[in-house]
């Protein structure tokens, strides 16, 4: 006899294991491939539809830190603790000559969405490269290690964050980038542009968020956190900014500009420190994963959030990444689990 019950809103499409805790996840912009980096180095590319392994390798000696895709989904880049960035051609499967991006950790690698250009961040140095690995430019804008890179959604502007500063670089001309300093005293750890390009928001070690409007470069500040804000995500409308400090998830309403003088919506606490949160790029789903392995998905409408699903993963979450088009969430676990969840 069939039980009459509501279908689970979440189904696992595929899963596999990588060697070690997942350090980074990235979907190719066309949604075909998912690149996965493990903290100790191993790197894999899987077919998003089937989970079949397309390519894998040992990655960077000492550990891989970041993976990134080019705008046309043809090139995959990775960076790591060996002082290099690497670029693969997804058509031929061949690797280009490694880019000597610095003598320290290469913590950032990012393709320009606007031109055939790769940017690497290693220590205090930013370097620009052509896709065939030719160095184009080298600058040292920050007095301390660069912590994050983020491209403006509509203009060839790249934000970089460090201790006490965010910089904006106009890479319209890759050999002579224009500069704009967005100063701040506190150590900034991440950078997130609103999809409409109006706001840049950065988490700081001082348990607060620092933001700037663009193009006015007017700064604003959001506090009330008890721990540093590790995870940030904008929804597609640029109205909602989801943030997590420790176990707590809060949403700020940017409907009338920076939410100065307003409290955020409190989505409540997870069981443990939130490791990542992500808004679905084309829709209204917010996914949150914590260190103990609890995940929650909220459906977001203009009024209030509704929890669609909650589940658990042995070993805990590290990274979450929504498929660029489908209601498909890739998760990376602390025990090396990689899986794709379909959300009905």
């Amino acid at each position, binding site marked *: 006899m069939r039980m009459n019950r509501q279908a689970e809103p979440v189904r696992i499409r595929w899963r596999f294991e990588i060697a070690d805790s997942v*350090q980074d996840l990235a979907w190719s912009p066309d949604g075909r491939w998912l690149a996965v980096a493990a903290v100790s180095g191993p790197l894999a590319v899987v077919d998003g539809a089937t989970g079949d392994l397309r390519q894998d390798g040992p990655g960077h000696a*000492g550990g891989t830190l970041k993976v990134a895709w080019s705008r046309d989904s043809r090139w995959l880049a990775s960076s790591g603790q060996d002082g290099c960035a690497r670029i693969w051609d997804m058509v031929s499967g061949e690797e280009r000559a490694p880019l000597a991006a610095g003598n320290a*950790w290469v913590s950032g690698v990012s393709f320009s969405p606007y031109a055939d250009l790769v940017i690497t961040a290693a220590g205090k140095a930013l370097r620009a490269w052509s896709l065939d690995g030719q160095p184009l430019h080298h600058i040292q804008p920050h007095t301390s*290690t660069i912590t994050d890179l983020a491209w403006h959604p509509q203009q060839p502007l790249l934000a970089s964050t460090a201790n006490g500063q965010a910089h904006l670089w106009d890479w319209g001309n890759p050999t002579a980038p224009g500069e704009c300093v967005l100063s701040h*005293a506190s*150590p900034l750890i991440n950078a997130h542009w609103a999809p409409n390009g109006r706001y840049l928001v950065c988490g700081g*070690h001082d348990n607060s968020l620092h933001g700037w409007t663009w193009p006015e470069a007017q700064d604003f500040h959001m506090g009330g956190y008890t721990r*540093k804000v590790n995870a940030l995500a904008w929804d597609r409308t640029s109205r909602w900014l989801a943030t997590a400090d420790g176990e707590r998830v809060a949403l700020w309403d940017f409907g009338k500009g920076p939410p100065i003088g307003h409290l955020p919506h409190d989505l409540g606490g997870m069981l443990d420190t939130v490791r990542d949160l992500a808004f679905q790029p084309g829709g209204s789903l917010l996914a949150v994963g914590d260190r103990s392995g609890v995940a929650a998905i909220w459906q977001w409408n203009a009024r209030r959030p509704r929890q669609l699903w909650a589940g658990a993963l042995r070993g805990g979450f590290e990274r979450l990444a929504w498929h660029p088009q489908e209601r498909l969430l890739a998760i990376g676990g602390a025990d090396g689990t990689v899986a794709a969840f379909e959300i009905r």
Partner: protein
Amino acid sequence: MPMNTADARIPVTVLTGFLGAGKTTLLNRILTEQHGQRIAVIENEFGEIGIDQALVINAEEEIFAMNNGCLCCTVRGDLIRILGNLMKRRAKFDRIVVETTGLANPGPVAQTFFMDDEMKDNLRLDGIVTVVDCKHIADHLDLNDECRAQVAFADTLLLNKTDLVDAAAVEGLESRLRAMNGLARMQRTAMAQADLRDVLDLGGFDLQRALDLNPAFLEPEYPFEWAGWYVLPAGESTLVLEDGPDPAMRLILLSVSEHDALAVSKETAIRLFSAPVIEARPGDQLKPDVGCYRLRLSQPGSKRFPLQLPRTAHIALFTEHHPDEFTLRVLDPHGQPMQPLFARAYNPGHTHDDAVSSVGIVEERPVNIHKLNLWLSELLREQGADIFRMKGVLHLADNANRFVFQGVHMLFDGQADRPWREDEPRQSQMIFIGRHLNRVDLTTGFQACLD
């Protein structure tokens, strides 16, 4: 603060030491010897160690303030990044060793483990090991703040290169270091051949061990240098002082009972020494139990201070300086010099040239944790820059468990520890290591936190 007794956090050892002291040699041994522990090492950028099987990461020292402008909240940004990455592979090692550059003040490194939530949740500062070059450290201590800070921060001091200096020099150095840091274990080594158990497994704070090593530890800084116990007959006795090195000296006279020990009256004397002084010029009458006198001694020649007693009395005399410096004599009513029944010299705080010292406090009565929190917060707000380290095992009222805590500058962190054993005294032990510490203020401040 969590009340769990099992601490699952990864222990971290911080290795400091002045340039050339032998850190690298020690690190090499830690990496190559069989000690049953898998170790991840974060070495400073000039390190030259490369061992294939060990997890070794180079760090470029990067210091920043977590909160605007507060120097006491400085941390190592590079360590936060590297340790954050290491914590994702925590199944691969049992312990982390962080090597600092020779010129570094260990403060920001140690603070990193208290200041950053992620670090605090996952890592435990097990100990700070400072390697000391016996041949050269004396010069460095004289000239260099960082070197003094490295000594002050240490849980273990490895006196290295003892083969290059004579035994008397090592003795002298040891007592100088002991005066600065009363807590640290000391181990003499040559070629950094230290017992690695003393380097890697420091475990909890144990004031008893520190006391065993250095019985004077709890009293290294009395405001007086000497105390004598006299039995004085009725009538007018006289204190006579000759020319000495200072124009004035503080002095206390306490009547004590026959059954009293100097140890009891000295607590009273400590309190009185911090009270406002009573000025006394030669010829002025002195009386016991009225407060702290300041004898004016600038006039040349013998200075006489009469002391009238209605009946025979036991009198304890506490002097700021040693009586020999002024050829102090106590004459009975017949002018005959009296000998104390009993006398002892105290370690004076004020002769330390290093300005770094330790204050230890032991109290039997249970501590009120709320009062302690308030007191420590205020103390650290005012003196946090000067207090390098602070450790304690506390006896809390109505609590079967020990409460352990430690702090670095303005930061502190505590948690419930194992239950008290039947055979150990339930008492609170506190230690402060820092610059310009005032023992009396710290002791009275702590006593005000008792239930």
